[in-house]
């Protein structure tokens, strides 16, 4: 009898990895609710708009998932996002550099900051939550000093089209293409490669991973590079779409990314999480926000609602994982 039950759960798990399946159902239910509540929700225009707005957060949240699975956090992503934007904007406007070269330098600068995060954690062994809390403030300071706290306006160009403004086949906003492309890449890295297994093992049982010959510190350092790269890509998409850069952009983005990851089933303790789950988690957050806007809800109430969704998701996750045992 008991064996039978066990067999059933494994079959169900196989459908979509069980947890991802639950998140998918939640995403669909919320979509169904808003579709009934407001006729505007289920329109092509709204759905594409929703996804486009999700792109920046989704790209960072999926990278954050890789890092959280490895057992670390990066609270400085929002600040790295700002530094990448400011460096790019500064070079393209004040230095008169070509936008391509400016963006490249901006992204590399962001990667440099990610490398510093990894180095800091490897050499001092400080908890990454605290370490990146401090680098978040330092990096934000860098963005403010470099820009003299002023925003930049950028010229329209092919570059802007490619990263932010164009529409594939005339309908799909190009940020969605970047979101999906980045998602597939991270999916392959985390769920299909040997490196991905090392990420899971590092967050699951670090000592065991070390004893199995995995260089867990190296794995985590790569994780910090991935979040920094995501912040860079996201910043490029943002400045391309908005044509502007502000040094305060991305404030709070790190917490939204962690929230999306948690809604998607990532365990804060490490060793559990999925890219698809986080993608759906990001979607749920966007659904709730846009849905509330369409319903004409007060803007100040939205954050409170997203907060409730996070709490609910965590409760369900904990219930699911204890039930399985």
């Amino acid at each position, binding site marked *: 009898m008991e064996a039978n039950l066990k067999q059933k759960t*494994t079959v169900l798990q196989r459908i979509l990895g069980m947890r991802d399946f639950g998140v998918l159902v939640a995403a669909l239910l919320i979509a169904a609710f808003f579709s009934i509540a407001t006729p505007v929700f289920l329109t092509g225009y709204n759905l594409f708009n929703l996804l486009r707005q999700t792109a920046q957060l989704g790209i960072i949240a999926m990278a954050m998932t890789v890092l959280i699975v490895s057992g670390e956090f990066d609270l400085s992503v929002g600040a790295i996002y700002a530094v990448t934007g400011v460096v790019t904007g500064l070079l393209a406007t004040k230095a008169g550099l070509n936008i391509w070269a400016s963006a490249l330098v901006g992204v590399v600068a962001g990667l440099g900051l990610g490398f510093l995060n990894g180095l800091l954690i490897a050499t001092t062994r400080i908890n990454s939550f605290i370490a990146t809390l401090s680098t978040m403030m330092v990096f934000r300071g860098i963005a403010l000093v470099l820009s003299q706290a002023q925003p930049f306006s950028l010229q329209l160009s092919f570059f802007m089209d490619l990263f932010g403004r164009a529409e594939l086949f005339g309908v799909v906003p190009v940020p969605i293409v970047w979101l999906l492309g980045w998602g597939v890449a991270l999916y392959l890295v985390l769920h299909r*490669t040997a490196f991905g297994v090392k990420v*899971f093992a590092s967050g699951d049982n670090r000592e065991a991973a070390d004893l*199995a*010959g995995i260089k867990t510190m190296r794995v985590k350092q790569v994780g910090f590079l991935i979040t920094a790269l995501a912040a860079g890509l996201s910043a490029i998409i943002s400045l391309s779409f908005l044509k502007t850069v502000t040094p305060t952009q991305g404030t709070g983005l790190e917490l939204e990314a962690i929230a999306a990851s948690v809604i998607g089933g990532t365990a804060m303790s490490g060793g559990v999480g999925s890219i698809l789950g986080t993608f759906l988690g990001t979607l749920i957050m966007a659904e709730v926000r846009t849905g509330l806007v369409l319903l004409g809800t007060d803007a100040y109430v939205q954050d409170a609602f997203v907060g409730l969704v996070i709490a609910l998701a965590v409760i369900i996750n904990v219930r699911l994982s204890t039930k399985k045992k």
Partner: protein
Amino acid sequence: MAEPMLQLRGLTKRFGGLTAVDRVDLEVYPGEVVGLLGDNGAGKSTLIKMVSGVYHPDGGQIFFQGREIRLGSPMDALELGIETLYQDLALAENLNVYANIFLGRERTKPFLGLIRVLDHANMHEESEKVLKRLEIEIPSLKSQIKHLSGGQRQAVAIGRSIYWNAKLLIMDEPTAALGVQEQRKVLDLVRVLASQNIPIIVISHQLYDIFSVTDRLVIMRRGRKVAERRTKDTTPDEVVGLIIGSEEVAQQPAGGPPAD
């Protein structure tokens, strides 16, 4: 006698002012099960960790298959065929059985000619083979470690070391976390492995286990090797005396527990 598989000469490890392992000599021969005994803090685990590449010795030499070796990391030891099973069962709880067996040495195959992806089918199949060879039964190799019993976990850990063609197996408290029946199974497994000519070092507090499974005993106290006995020539009483350092008992093997 055959050449020793492992030979330690004057192996020493200090932590600050404390000498955890003090000039220990030890030989292990092919197909032999050696019990390493001692009270808490006697230096057994430290000694073992030098052989498995976790600690670097401060003095002395390690010879493996007749050649002196220097181990920079656990991976160096694994590559030579020195496999260690730790008492807290070094497995990743959320990964499945075959992912743990291949942990750190995952099998991959090319994908679209661009990247290498995990070869699940191969790892599953190979894991099945090795567990079968050890007569270990686990319902599904796709189940996560956290859903397995202590004995099944130990079996997975042993399966892992065997798959990688262990030339020397070190087991730190292999039965500590197990129920009685599972303890029996693990001890049987130790004999199966020894009969396949793999030498094994077993650390244990359970005298019964040690006596039922080993050929030779090495006793440590405060970092030093204090005695070495053939298992069939000694008694639990004598061994207890040696562990806690009561000379009288050591001289009178048949005596009762020491009045320490």
